[in-house]
């Protein structure tokens, strides 16, 4: 699931605690989040300018691909933020989210050039861009202890639309890529070989698509629960494990 969303409320408390104890961590995280907000805004502006100038989405991916790859790959740092306790989120959750984005960018749109001009690519790029700008500015303002309500509102409401849109874009893109993967046999290993292993990238992509079925609802409903907690202050009685 590529639209990275995390447990905002626990983070807020933790960020407040940290601010008083760890100035360097807070400083670094603030710089990081400002930089990422700026990066995704640059991406948004570039996409809008391209569309206004060229009137078509063809060639749009190519024009922003380097910026996208840079900022999306840089997000790997977030895994380390969790691992070193700088951010109070599960390493695994962040890892899965960032890796699914990296997978999409490097193993689908970068590697399978023929699908770069598909409309579905623009679909998920727009969803990701709006999501990331909202998310990183939310973190930035939280760290600065000055969170405007509209950013909080955006973070906990826009996902209702952006999440399904992003997922649709990703799935349609992977689906479009399948025939090209099949034909080229890329990233695949066949038997016989010295290490007695085989890997079929085509089947791997199909499994990835199928994995959206269990994963997407879980992440979506998690965000809905967060939304109810944060925006409406509902006391949730948690399910006993």
């Amino acid at each position: 699931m590529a639209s990275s969303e995390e447990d905002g409320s626990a983070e807020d408390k933790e960020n407040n605690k940290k601010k008083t104890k760890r100035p360097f961590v807070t400083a670094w995280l603030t710089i990081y989040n400002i930089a990422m907000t700026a990066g995704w805004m640059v991406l948004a502006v570039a996409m809008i300018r391209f569309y206004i100038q060229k009137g078509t989405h063809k060639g749009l991916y190519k024009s922003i691909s380097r910026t996208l790859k840079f900022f999306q790959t840089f997000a790997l740092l977030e895994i380390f933020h969790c691992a070193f306790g700088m951010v109070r989120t599960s390493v695994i959750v962040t890892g899965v989210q960032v890796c699914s984005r990296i997978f999409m960018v490097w193993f689908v749109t970068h590697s399978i050039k023929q699908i770069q001009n598909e409309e579905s690519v623009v679909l998920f790029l727009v969803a990701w861009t709006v999501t990331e700008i909202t998310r990183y500015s939310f973190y930035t303002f939280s760290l600065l202890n000055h969170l405007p309500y509209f950013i909080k509102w955006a973070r906990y409401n826009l996902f209702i639309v952006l999440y399904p849109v992003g997922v649709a874009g990703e799935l349609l893109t992977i689906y479009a890529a399948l025939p090209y993967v099949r034909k080229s046999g890329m990233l695949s290993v066949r038997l016989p070989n010295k290490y007695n292993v085989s890997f079929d990238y085509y089947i791997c992509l199909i499994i990835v698509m199928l994995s959206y079925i269990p994963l997407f609802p879980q992440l979506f409903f998690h965000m809905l629960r967060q939304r109810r907690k944060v925006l409406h202050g509902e006391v949730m009685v948690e399910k006993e494990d």
Partner: protein
Amino acid sequence: MKHYEVEILCAKTKDKLCFLDKVDPNSTIGEIKAMFHKSHPQWYPARQSIRLDAKGKSLKDEDILQNLPVGTTATLYFRDLGAQISWVTVFLTEYGGPLLLYLMFYFRVPFIYNTKYDFTTSKHWVVHLACMCHSFHYVKRLLETLFVHRFSHGTMPLRNIFKNCTYYWGFSAWMAYYINHPLYTPPAYGEQQVQLALIIFLFCQIGNFSIHIALRNLRPPGSKARKIPYPTKNPFTWLFLLVSCPNYTYEVGSWVGFTLMTQCLPVAFFTLVGFIQMMIWAKGKHRSYLKEFRDYPRLRSPILPFML
């Protein structure tokens, strides 16, 4: 004799669930669980967690009521651990799967490989050896579950069986698919590699079994006593001098042997994942040994001598 009164509250909601009066002060928590079960039949004792504090640690079944820091009216908290399944059931299921699945691939049961290979056998003798080793390993595990291991807890949460079976069954099917494949390539260094691998495998299987027997003998039947394990007359147990969990060390060794024998990347991957999991368990066990026993030997590492 002064009787106690026991009230049991739900740890989450603090609702009064049960009130027991005229409780013998010498009653154990286990006996209280049985009484609680009578008034709430859906919560059998194995799924009850009884604590002194709503967020505290579970009390043991052997704990005696009057020895606990409670007044004559004791307030205990209950948490539902969820549906439970016995360890023995879990082990038998999770080990029985790999045993059978591997054999299905070995005998090339239809619908796995190309039809022309159905029920054929491999021409490589290492494939037959691998099948014997793999099967031996899981038969050994099944027999140990039935006759050797003494479990501290009777049960574990039900969802564990799905998780564990997916792991064991999934990996063994994946490995078996390649080892028994018609296009399997035998090890690069031939006979020598296979013989070395077999020696390592057998050595570690005997070692692992020796440790299981030593651990069993530490604990008399029916007891839940905890003691430091020490080397015995059996040389295979001398690894206790260097390592807290030599059973895991030997287990990793067995799978390293099997990887070498089959020269199969999925097997290497399974060995790596198993090693990581066992290392985590060994570190935990090592830490709890250190906490529980002040005279715990300092030379020992959790799983790899002097290293990890």
